[in-house]
């Protein structure tokens, strides 16, 4: 019982950290073509995510693996019910990974521009479909006691699309802030000015999303039952305001950290609302997949808890150290020297 709750929380943490970390390289990937004005700047922008994107993406692999280990029914249902969206996410991630790695591996304007566009498009489609999927999970999937009643096109409902847009907007802002923080000169300037414009879009979408959530989902039921939890969405909104305040004072790093907090807290808000469901059913509450009816047995949960308690903190420490190692602002000179 307790371990099932622990794993519900860990499940949420893994997804939240994944969105926070891969979020900025999605954003940077989408924006690169539009913010970088020449070949050197495009290389700078790519080098800003080059050393870390792969480590970030492992949070998704871990989230997937942890879902499999801790909630096998959720793993089996989530990815087979959402088969085609999952395929689109996989393809986006595949194209994105090789775009980042292959771009610098050959010369020529056509080669570069091919991978630039491949990266931009795949960095857009991945969060778009992730948002669409989670938007539908928040509403509940049409699961009856005897199986799934949904269809691919059924996912394209207003709330699903709104969540998709929110994901894209959050990550665009996140990526712009990251590029502003990691780079210098005119690229950082353009990132900065775009980030401040994007804030309004994010703020507007967040307000609409929070309002629509009241109508399209049951996520607020938990908050109404125990209003203390409202501190989570309040903090989410506060950190979004924080992004604005830090940004206005030219504190790029603080603004980026506030943006991390926004993403973490938005995901946390959704999870508080979902609990104890991992995937609610929109047809029949009894068919919902919950932390209690879809988890692994006690021994698996125990083993996984031990592993997670030891290794997740270790991972966080060394990833943090690697981020610190790459904290110096990237300049045109770094690229000119080659082999940064």
């Amino acid at each position, binding site marked *: 019982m307790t371990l099932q709750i622990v794993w519900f929380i860990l499940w949420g943490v893994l997804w939240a950290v994944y969105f926070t970390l891969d979020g900025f390289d999605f954003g940077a990937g989408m924006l690169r073509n539009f913010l970088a004005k020449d070949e050197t700047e495009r290389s700078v922008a790519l080098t800003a995510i*080059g*050393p*870390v*994107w*792969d*480590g970030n*993406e*492992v949070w*998704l*692999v*871990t989230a*997937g*693996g942890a*879902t*499999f*280990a*801790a*909630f*096998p*029914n959720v*793993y*089996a*249902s989530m*990815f*087979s*019910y959402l*088969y*085609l969206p*999952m*395929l689109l996410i*996989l*393809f986006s*991630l*595949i*194209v994105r*990974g*090789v775009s980042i*790695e*292959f771009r610098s*591996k*050959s010369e020529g304007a056509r080669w570069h521009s091919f991978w630039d566009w491949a990266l931009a498009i795949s960095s857009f489609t991945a969060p778009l479909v992730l948002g669409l999927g989670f938007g539908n999970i928040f509403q509940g999937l049409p699961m009856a006691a005897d199986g*799934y009643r949904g269809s691919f096109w059924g996912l394209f409902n207003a709330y699903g699309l709104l969540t998709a847009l929110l994901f894209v907007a959050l990550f665009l802002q996140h990526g712009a802030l990251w590029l502003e923080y990691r780079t210098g000169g005119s690229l950082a300037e353009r990132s900065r000015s775009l980030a401040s414009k994007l804030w309004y879009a994010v703020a507007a979408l967040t307000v609409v999303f929070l309002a629509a959530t009241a109508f399209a989902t049951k996520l607020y039921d938990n908050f109404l039952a125990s209003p203390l939890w409202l501190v989570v969405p309040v903090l989410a909104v506060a950190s979004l305001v924080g992004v604005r305040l830090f940004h206005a004072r030219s504190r790029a790093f603080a603004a980026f950290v506030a943006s991390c907090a926004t993403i973490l807290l938005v995901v946390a808000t959704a999870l508080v609302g979902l609990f104890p469901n991992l995937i609610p059913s929109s047809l029949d509450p009894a068919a919902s997949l919950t932390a209690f009816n879809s988890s*692994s*047995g006690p*021994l*698996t949960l125990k*083993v*996984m808890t031990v*592993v*997670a308690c030891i*290794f*997740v903190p270790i*991972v966080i420490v*060394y990833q943090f150290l*690697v981020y610190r*190692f*790459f904290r110096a602002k990237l300049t045109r000179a770094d690229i000119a*020297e080659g*082999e*940064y």
Partner: protein
Amino acid sequence: MSVEALSRIQFAMVAIFHFLFVPLTLGLSALVAYMETRYARTGDEIYLRMTKFWSKLFLVNFAVGVVTGITLEFQFGMNWAEYSKFVGDIFGAPLAIEATVAFFLESTFIGLWMFSWKRVSKGVHAAIMWVVAFASSLSALWILLANGWMQHPEGYVISGGRAQLVDFGALLWNEYSWVKFFHTLMSAITLSAFFVMGISAVHLLKGRKSEMFKRSFRIGATVGIVASVLIVFSGDMSGREVADYQPTKLAAMESVWHTQKAAPFYFLDVPEPKHESNLVEALEVPNLLSLLSYHDPNATIKGLLDFPADQRPPVAVSFWSFRLMVGLGMLFILLAFLALVFAWRDKLQKHRWFLWIMSFAIVLPYIASELGWLLAEIGRQPWIVYGLLRTSDAASGAISAGDVLASLIAFVVLYGSLAVVDAFLLVKYARKVEE
């Protein structure tokens, strides 16, 4: 075609494709780390150039390995939902642990390695690559602990229609998995050694950068002979595991139809599954099959006809992939031995015929590795978890054949394109020698 049939084709394709990149990642990471360590120790610029040359090939290969691995992580849930529900309690754990303890380490440190050439000392930079090499092997171990459980399930009870873990130690110390890990690692190192020797051979034939490629070749030959000999031992141990725990696979891969005591081995053997017999059985060595399988010349081998027809794996594929794999394994020892002799006597450039052979031999360990997996997975059929769950009961219920056909076509197109780009880059960097 059914969801199951299409899903099997798709899984075979994405797994075979992924495994084109895995062994080189496993082996070449260690070889590059060794080369860079030599550079850090000696300061010899040749080792630096060597490190850079091989690491470029490594990175191109690594990138495709990473992105195609993500597919597999989600394939079980997407196409094999019933399997996932049945085994999730057990199979999911090693996958999740793999990501947590190994894949994080590998991915984070490869990023650090790529972008820290000028920012850390030579020794530290080499050490980072050793971490990558260690992490990739650790990753393979956890994946094989998962696969080993499908081959030889241990430490579970069946409750509520699904397998539930009751003994984590049994999963962790599953003999089958460790033998398989050892076998996979040795074959990966052999593949990488042949990769290094083959590309070095091409350059030596053209007389380019002969010192760097001679030394590379020597490293490849030394590692290659050790690993290819160890393959025989790990292969023998694998065979024992199969004999003990997967009698249907043993019978199929040896094409034994009738149960026999003191079974002979036929060097020339052609199975004819249609007639449930062998077309040709010649060049007989008495007792050898019993000896090889059970280390006992009088052991009894249970024949296929003594298993119900619905429990027999496809015989032709199992038999031929096994035979061919073993034949290639023997050839690797011969080639690695010659390579070692010629390389250490500095006679490589005199034996141009041998360099020609080695440059074409690059593909052979790839074929052998894939054949090994064909045998492991097809030989386990009709079971997806040996003896517990049939593959026909494992596919997702919520997807349609149309969905899977669409995804299969999409995978063929995407992976086909990836293969073309990857081959282009590998050839480019294999040819490119920097001054």
